């Protein structure tokens, strides 16, 4: 780990050089400093009557600049460096070098971002002067910068991870922002676990550090730990992905850790919602039960990650076994225990944050049935698709659409034709046949019977399992390419 940040980290060094090296950094930083100091001096000259107010304004503005430089410039530099190495094929040359994945990702994170770091230090120094001159406590200014820096490093690691995984890293980021902004941030309100890591920007923002009496309260502490956890997970995922394209970012254990992290983030965010909520949003009408259900549904989607990993590894192992691989290795962990573990992790969410009135062993048991049925069906669908040539994402997407939203669509059409109202729709037994409906009935609507819904979901879960065992057990690609006798083994 020690060589991640070393100056002779080869990948960090080369991307630093490719970004222009010290020459470019010094010229940009000096130019930026001259511009900012010139603007500050000009604004003081234009309105010499209230220098304290102007400098306070500049301190706030500089913090905004810091955020822009560290997050936007930094993430963009990391993403560009990783994508460049992937698209040119240079990453394969790196993979042959005796550079560990940990060191390589360290290089990708710390090499291309040196420009942003130096600019940020310059802004920190200027901001320290303006803060002290405007009566803002220096420790508050430094604390705000420290929180921002921890957030920025987390975003750089996430950027490296996303860039290694997908081509459209920027597209995903833009999509997230659009989703967050659309509906006045309703996604952020429904998924508090998503809001918590970005709370230094949208919640109890770093700007509030500059107000008198601000302190490093529980919201910041929680988000700091969220950043550390998220960064570790993404770092490990990026490291695996760096080693070879076909490796899964998260194995079964990593995936379970990801699901646990989501559950922990959601619990912490729902408990501290007032501190982390977006400042522009009035969430007084939002019930924590609704947040629980939406977070639980998201947890079910996140739980697909370890199940996908376990299923993939299991199917690959069977494939090698059928090819009589002399170096087959130990049988990997089966997917069914992973399904149960993932369901147990998801179940922690309602167990910890559910309102006391709703939290009964019956409601937990019913939730467990929903979780296990869904994850079990996912496991078999993935096994079917990995064994054949169907795309897993397409099959899963269709399955989730049909089972989660199908009953709602049926009821929406029926209610539209009959002209019934919204409350009746939410309490409809047909809606209760989808996991969304059942969980809403259990945790939001209270005493509604969910027996029909649970029975339907169990039946639906059995369908992929039956299909899996009914289909012939031939792997995609085996026809016409079966194992032949060994090619001439030779030893010169």
């Amino acid at each position: 780990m020690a060589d991640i940040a070393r100056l002779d980290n080869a990948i960090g060094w080369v991307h630093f050089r490719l970004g222009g090296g010290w020459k470019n950094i010094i010229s940009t930083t000096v130019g930026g400093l001259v511009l900012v100091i010139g603007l500050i001096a000009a604004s003081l000259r234009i309105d010499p009557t209230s220098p304290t107010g102007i400098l306070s304004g500049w301190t706030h503005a500089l913090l905004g600049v810091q955020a822009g430089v560290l997050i936007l410039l930094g993430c963009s530099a990391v993403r560009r460096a990783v994508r460049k190495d992937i698209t040119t094929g240079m990453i394969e040359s790196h993979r042959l070098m005796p550079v560990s994945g940990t060191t390589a990702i360290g290089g990708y994170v710390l090499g291309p971002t040196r420009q942003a770091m130096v600019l940020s230090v310059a802004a920190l120094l200027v901001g320290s002067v303006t803060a002290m001159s405007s009566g803002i406590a220096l420790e508050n200014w430094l604390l705000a910068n420290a929180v921002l820096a921890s957030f920025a490093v987390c975003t750089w690691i996430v950027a490296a991870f996303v860039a290694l995984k997908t081509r459209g890293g920027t597209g995903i980021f833009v999509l997230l922002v659009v989703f967050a902004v659309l509906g006045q941030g309703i996604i952020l309100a429904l998924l508090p676990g998503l809001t918590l890591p970005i709370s230094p920007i949208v919640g109890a923002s770093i700007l509030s550090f500059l107000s008198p009496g601000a302190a490093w309260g529980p919201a910041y502490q929680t988000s700091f730990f969220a950043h550390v956890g998220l960064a570790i997970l993404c770092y490990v995922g990026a490291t695996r992905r760096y080693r070879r394209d076909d490796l899964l970012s998260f194995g079964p254990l990593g995936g379970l850790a990801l699901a646990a992290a989501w559950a922990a983030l959601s619990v912490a965010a729902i408990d501290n919602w007032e501190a982390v909520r977006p400042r522009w949003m009035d969430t007084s009408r939002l019930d924590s039960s609704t947040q629980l259900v939406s977070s639980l549904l998201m947890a079910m989607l996140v739980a697909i990650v370890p199940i996908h990993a376990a299923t993939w590894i299991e199917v690959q192992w069977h494939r090698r076994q059928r090819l009589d691989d002399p170096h087959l290795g130990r049988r990997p962990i089966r997917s069914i225990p992973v399904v149960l573990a993932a369901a147990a992790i998801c179940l922690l969410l309602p167990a910890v944050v559910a309102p006391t009135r709703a939290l009964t062993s019956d409601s937990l048991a019913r939730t467990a049935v929903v979780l296990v049925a869904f994850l079990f069906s996912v496991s078999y669908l993935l096994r079917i698709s990995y064994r054949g040539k169907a795309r897993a994402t397409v099959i899963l997407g269709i399955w989730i659409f049909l089972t989660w939203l199908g009953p709602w669509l049926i009821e929406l059409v029926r209610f539209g034709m009959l002209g019934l109202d919204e409350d009746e729709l939410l309490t409809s037994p047909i809606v209760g046949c989808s996991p969304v409906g059942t969980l809403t009935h259990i945790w939001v609507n209270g005493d509604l019977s969910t027996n029909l819904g649970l029975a339907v979901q169990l039946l639906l879960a059995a369908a992929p399992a039956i299909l899996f065992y009914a289909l012939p057990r031939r792997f995609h690609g085996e026809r016409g390419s079966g194992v032949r006798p060994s090619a001439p083994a030779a030893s010169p």
Partner: protein
Amino acid sequence: MEQDSSCREVLVALERVRVHFGPLVAVRNVSFELRGGDLLGLVGPNGAGKTTLLRAVAGLQPLACGRVQVMGGTVAPGAINVLRHIGFTPDTPVVYEELTARDFLRFIATAYGIPTEDFRERIDFWLEQVWLREKADQRIRALSRGMRQRIGIARTLLPNPPVILLDEPAAGLDPAGRVQFRQLLCSLRDQGKAIIISSHILADLNEYCTHIAIMARGSIVQFGTVAEVAGAGDGQRCRYTIVLARPTAGVADLLSKVAGVNAVEIDRDRITLEFSRQREDAAALLAELVAQQVPVASFTANAPDLEEAYLRTGIRQVD
């Protein structure tokens, strides 16, 4: 140069290596071993699986089955102590075009942990070896394809790996470069490195390889020393070249009537044909030609070569 192979250490061992691309089996159960000082030429039509096999040995290609071992360690993603023993030059070496050749090699030297006090000397040495000393401080972007190819070779050899994999390394080199490259390869082979080279230039392989593997449709169809592969096939027959004093009409008809003569090719005053390897039979054929007043200037049995051996396998371009 030749040592008893059993005394030399096995540097590369492939055991039932199989690579799939979806339903396509790109490499099919390939097994062989190479020892220090072995230089294996990999030949075959486009799409035979040569590049995939080299990538599999380098650990860049996931295996559907089997194992590759280099110096006793299994090649796997992230096995940096094994991967450091492998040098691989792809057919189009990837370089950072914005860097100079020297800076690029400095990056490689840093990554391989070559001590700072050594790497200047080593970079200069390899720049000299690939004839790029005078271009060392030019940006790679400004260099020709052949020069980039040489930088790719220098990148591979700079860390001094005992196992070297070269995919069509001479493709971008000029004639003088090829000659120098051949000398370099012979020198590396004599240093005891295990080298696998994929190439379509069989005449070159004939000169410097110790072993040849002919690949088709993912499988190795022939493997052995150059002499074994070149001499393989019908041991009773060989090709002859007959040079006439002048182009002569009717020779083709005459030859077609001689029992055992086939694959006759006539190019003005030069005839090549396949016939019995027996000296008595060859003498009888020559006597028959002379008796028919064919003006034979020379009559030579060709030494077995790789091109012939390759053509004998009947491999056609993969669809």
